[in-house]
């Protein structure tokens, strides 16, 4: 305990030869962060690496690409391509079916992309409205507080809230039907569908966007607007040449963060749709619970694919963030 002392180090630096002091202190320096690194390695990095390595091994432990190839399911994929080609040739809707796992990835990517884009634009509009719109001050603080709550209101309860709203007996469904005579379910809407799930995800995406992007909007200095006006810029020019170039890196960065946020989410979808909508976290969940694919290593490969997608998204995020930070000092 005591040989870690800072004052010892300060005195040692002045009196003792530095090399000796260094040799003595070096291991103890690291003791302070050792618990964190041991924790992170054991419970974050190793389990992930274990899956990543497992994705490239077969049951006997030999190195193989079979699992990764298994995700793409070549026979079914070539059927799909053939079917697409045939229906293109014959101008018909061939109703082609992607291999299950690929289809699950695809629908997950689509839902994540749609909900992150809708959430990002709506969140940006709200952030601009509360920062720049000349609304009373209490609206700004109330919106930010509510956003803090709503961005954490994901998961199972959110699914219940949307069933109560847009389910077959939900308030909005019933009101639209009785007051306006519009039966949205007869018109093909379903809360258990792509758009139903996207609309639900947007509920936690918008507030997250508001929370993250508001500081960036705050960072737009008033002087820039005044300078632009002095130079004779119109409002449109000010937006096109000042606001958008400054905002877009943090905007794009946040879109990517929202994408990763939606891509890994399972609880909302599972509570909403059970296992009827085949998104990739639900496929992986079913695989872990019941080994439905009869090959644990294929499960590893699915997990690996999820890490690759969210990892790529975050590489972009970091890149955009470093670009945006130049402006928002």
């Amino acid at each position: 305990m005591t040989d870690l002392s800072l004052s010892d180090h300060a005195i040692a630096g002045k009196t003792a030869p530095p090399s000796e002091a260094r040799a003595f202190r070096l291991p103890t320096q690291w003791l302070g962060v050792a618990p964190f690194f041991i924790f992170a390695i054991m419970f974050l990095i190793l389990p992930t690496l274990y899956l990543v390595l497992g994705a490239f091994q077969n049951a006997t432990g030999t190195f193989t690409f079979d699992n990764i190839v298994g995700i793409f399911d070549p026979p079914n994929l070539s059927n799909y391509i053939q079917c697409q080609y045939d229906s293109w040739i014959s101008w018909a809707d061939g109703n082609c079916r992607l291999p299950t796992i690929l289809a699950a990835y695809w629908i997950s990517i689509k839902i994540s992309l749609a909900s992150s884009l809708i959430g990002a634009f709506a969140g940006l509009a709200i952030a601009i409205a509360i920062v720049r719109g000349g609304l009373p001050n209490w609206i700004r603080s109330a919106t930010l507080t509510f956003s803090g709550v709503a961005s954490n209101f994901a998961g199972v309860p959110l699914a219940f809230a949307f069933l109560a709203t847009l389910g077959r007996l939900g308030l909005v469904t019933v009101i639209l039907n009785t007051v306006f005579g519009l039966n949205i379910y007869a018109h093909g809407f379903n809360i258990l569908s792509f758009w139903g799930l996207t609309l639900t995800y947007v509920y936690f995406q918008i507030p997250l966007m508001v929370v993250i992007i508001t500081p960036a909007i705050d960072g737009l200095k008033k002087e820039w607007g005044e300078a632009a006006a002095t130079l004779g810029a119109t409002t449109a020019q000010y937006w096109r040449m000042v606001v958008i170039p400054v905002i877009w890196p943090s905007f794009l960065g946040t879109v990517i963060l929202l994408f990763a946020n939606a891509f890994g989410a399972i609880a909302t979808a599972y509570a909403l749709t059970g296992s009827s909508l085949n998104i990739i976290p639900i496929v992986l969940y079913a695989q872990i619970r019941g080994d439905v694919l009869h090959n644990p290593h294929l499960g590893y490969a699915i997990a690996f694919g999820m890490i690759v997608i969210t990892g790529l998204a975050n590489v972009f995020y970091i890149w955009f963030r470093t670009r945006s930070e130049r402006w928002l000092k």
Partner: protein
Amino acid sequence: MKSGRFWAWVVFALGAAYFFIPLIATVEFSMRMRRGVYSLDAYKVVLGDPRFQATFGYSVLAAVFTIILGVLIVVPTAYWIRLRLPQLRPIVEFITLLPLVIPAIVIVFGYIRMYGSNSPLPFLASGRGTDALLVIGYATLALPYMYRAVDTGLRTIDVRTLTEAAQILGAGWGTIITRVILPNVLIAVLSGAFLTFAIVIGEFTMASLLNRPAFGPYLQNIGANRAYEPAALAIIAFAITWGCMSLIQILSRFAPRSANRPN
């Protein structure tokens, strides 16, 4: 500027509608249990359900242990990074962000494969071990939020001067961390703690895959089998999240302001 304000109101009103209609619908739905009249029957049924009490109690306990574990790991690390090893800051920040990149379902899948009964560290061989693994998993999920909260708190105090002053007065490392640093960042730690609490209470994936009797899987189970109770539970969950966030807001007003960061 006038038209700007008009559009700001329109955007705000649309946003407010999108966020309040589901809440109103959920409240309305939760009171429809008794035919023909509004009643609080669903809430009575839910709150009186022994499984509600058991699973909620389990999750509260898990949240408390998660917060303790998170504080034990994060506070000394963030402190030590600020004091002695600033060169490690980017690495530690990167690691604390990883749980946002790696989906929870992937992390828990790794646990299941690595810490099974036949492994060198058989967490999953016993109920207590699985509970511990669940708390550990929650601590990893909370890591990004906890670390950022504590690090922001540390930024507002002069860690080096406080440490040196304490050492001159003869304090050891345990005393410095528990009696000098922790009280100074307590508000930051508490806001991290409430966020952790809000995350842990409704968490579904990890608890469900580790087969623990937590609140999240109970919610899911009720949702699959009942009509009106889920809406009541959603309102209760929303109230809990709201409570945690309000406490963070209130606490942040008491947070110390330093000379170099006046706002």
